[in-house]
């Protein structure tokens, strides 16, 4: 039976607990948000001992279900001041699920300056003092842990940014090639740093396949689900070929590619950084066009990007990173963007927050537009060394805006706005405004329907239907984030009628239950309401569900679109 593994960093004790009955049907985001809401005082300082950092595999993680290997991490966010769930691929989620660990909860904080690592295994968690790997980057931590404990060991680690409690710090997860996936958003790396944990190792020894209540039913549903993923042109062909970066040219054509710190919607150098160019470059240099972030991923939107000598530069090279350093900072050199991506992984800093931050830093005059060499220097020499300037930069876009008196600061709830201009793609603006996570495209990806003609079509330049679209997608996403599924299963789920029932059938077969589509929708609604209640008690109310003023006052080319939703129209989102 699944257990809760609990670690108290104040008194350095650990225990194994039974899963409370109320948590039995929860996984992933539903579980981490429930734990945070139950155990964290909403008004506490996110870097204090009162915060709790928890990890939970999804309901289907560890099974043979395709694309079910995502791990949820939860805490109060030091960046937004609200609740945070951030999920990532890698090898940890499946290891935890197979060890029967429903959640790992880390509470308290050491009173002394001593740093620790945690070893998680089938018999519980041990807390060990850590000296050797302090101040070391994430790649070296993974290498060292593999040398100490073996190649198969799972690793969750923080880089320099997390050690120094920068609010853009992420938590890195070892992937199947000993590279890195990230719980990127919301500064969860700083929370792990505040608990003075440099890394968590996971020993899979003694683990067993997760039990399936009805294996035959599961197999049938899993087959139908995989078929839907492979049959849909987005998940079956577009993503494995071009990666998420296929979006650069599409958003540029639609005038929704935020450029030069969100001053215009098209970037002259778009083709140089596009998915098409990236694909051809990777193929010519002997990299990998397709790559999975976790075992069992059949979409394979990731890739391995090499330099012109055929040497590894980075993997998991995403549209948001490439857009942010590319269009938003006017850098048209894909090799330099790839180097920056690798540096951000090593330093342990969110590549969306940091890319948008550089756009604000360019606006502030800290570096020139398009100056990729200085951007690489700032990453290495300032953020990577924790200088005073580095800490300001490592605080994210809002931090730089406040420090340097910039008024065009694209954040919601202090979290950087990702790669779609909300004036020319209005549905995503509703998601940015209302998401419990701060600005976050993944919490209700209206781009599918606004731009990509997936799940129907809602005109991106008009207000009609956007609130409802965002609401429906945010509810569905909260549920999907609880299953351990990659969010890209939403593309086939929106278009192929067999897909969502197969997903529900897999959950039912796994646990021997009888959920309906309505139950799943209700789970999504419940999660959103629970998260919002926490945020309200933390002081984030309707007035924080707003986009920055400049989106209202500055029309964006080429459509000269403005953000024209009234406050009352935005607040309609919560009427469910």
């Amino acid at each position: 039976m699944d257990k809760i593994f609990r670690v108290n960093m104040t008194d350095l004790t650990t225990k194994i607990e039974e899963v409370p009955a109320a948590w039995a049907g929860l996984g992933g985001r539903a579980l981490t948000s429930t734990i945070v809401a139950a155990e964290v005082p909403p008004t506490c300082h996110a870097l204090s001992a009162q915060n709790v950092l928890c990890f939970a595999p999804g309901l289907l993680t560890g099974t043979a279900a395709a694309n079910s290997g995502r791990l949820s991490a939860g805490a109060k966010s030091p960046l937004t001041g609200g609740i945070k769930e951030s999920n990532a691929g890698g090898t940890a989620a499946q290891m935890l699920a197979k060890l029967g660990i429903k959640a790992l909860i880390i509470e308290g904080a050491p009173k002394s300056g001593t740093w620790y690592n945690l070893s998680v295994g089938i018999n519980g968690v041990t807390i060990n003092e850590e000296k050797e790997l302090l101040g070391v980057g994430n790649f070296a931590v993974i290498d060292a842990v593999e040398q100490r404990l073996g190649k198969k060991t799972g690793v969750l680690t923080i880089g320099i940014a997390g050690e120094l409690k920068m609010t853009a710090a992420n938590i890195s997860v070892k992937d199947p090639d000993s590279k890195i996936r990230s719980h990127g958003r919301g500064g969860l790396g700083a929370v792990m740093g505040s608990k003075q944990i440099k890394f968590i190792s996971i020993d899979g020894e003694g683990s067993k396949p997760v039990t399936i209540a009805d294996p035959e039913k599961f197999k049938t549903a899993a087959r139908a689900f995989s078929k839907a993923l492979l049959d849909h042109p987005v998940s079956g062909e577009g993503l494995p070929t071009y990666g998420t970066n296929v979006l650069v040219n599409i958003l540029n054509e639609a005038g929704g590619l935020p450029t030069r710190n969100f001053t215009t919607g098209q970037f002259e150098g778009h083709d140089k950084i596009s998915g098409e160019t990236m694909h051809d470059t990777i193929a010519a240099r002997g990299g990998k066009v397709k790559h999975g972030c976790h075992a069992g991923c059949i979409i394979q939107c990731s890739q391995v990007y090499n330099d012109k000598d055929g040497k590894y530069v980075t993997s998991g090279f995403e549209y948001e990173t490439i857009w942010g350093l590319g269009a938003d900072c006017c850098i048209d050199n894909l090799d330099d963007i790839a180097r920056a991506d690798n540096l951000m992984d090593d330093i342990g800093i969110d590549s969306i927050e940091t890319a948008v931050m550089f756009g604000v830093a360019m606006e502030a005059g800290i570096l020139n537009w398009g100056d990729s060499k200085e951007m690489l220097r700032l990453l290495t020499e300032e953020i990577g060394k924790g200088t005073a300037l580095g800490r300001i930069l490592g605080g994210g876009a809002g931090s730089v805006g406040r420090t340097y008196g910039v008024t065009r600061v694209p954040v919601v709830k202090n979290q950087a706005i990702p790669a779609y201009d909300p004036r020319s793609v209005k549905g995503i603006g509703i998601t940015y405004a209302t998401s419990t996570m701060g600005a976050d495209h993944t919490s209700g990806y209206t781009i599918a329907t606004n731009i990509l003609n997936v799940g129907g079509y809602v005109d991106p330049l008009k207000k009609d239907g956007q609130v409802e679209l965002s609401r429906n997608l945010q509810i569905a996403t909260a549920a999907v984030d609880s299953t351990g599924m990659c969010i890209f299963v939403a593309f086939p789920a929106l278009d192929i009628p067999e897909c969502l029932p197969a997903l529900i059938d897999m959950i039912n077969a796994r646990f021997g239950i009888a959920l309906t589509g309505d139950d799943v929708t209700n789970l999504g609604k419940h999660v959103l309401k629970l998260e919002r209640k926490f945020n309200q008690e933390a002081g984030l109310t309707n007035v924080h569900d707003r986009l920055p003023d400049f989106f209202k006052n500055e029309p964006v080319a080429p459509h000269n679109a403005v953000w024209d939703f009234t406050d009352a129209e935005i607040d309609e989102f919560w009427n469910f």
Partner: protein
Amino acid sequence: MLITLKLFATFRNGRFKVAEQELPEGTDVRAVVLSLGLTEEEIGIVMLNGRHGELDSKLSDHDTLSLFPLVGGG
């Protein structure tokens, strides 16, 4: 009339990225698609001057027509 035709993703294979085309007045998007050897089913997104268009959309002088297969990301 003169239009600018842009192709993306797999549509570029064996074709081109961008080309100017001289077309008879009243040509619609469908005719351009078929002239490229593409089928209607292969078309995921039609953009006409940066806005979503249809296969039935009529083209005008100096339009920019962009054609994408069904692709996505995030």
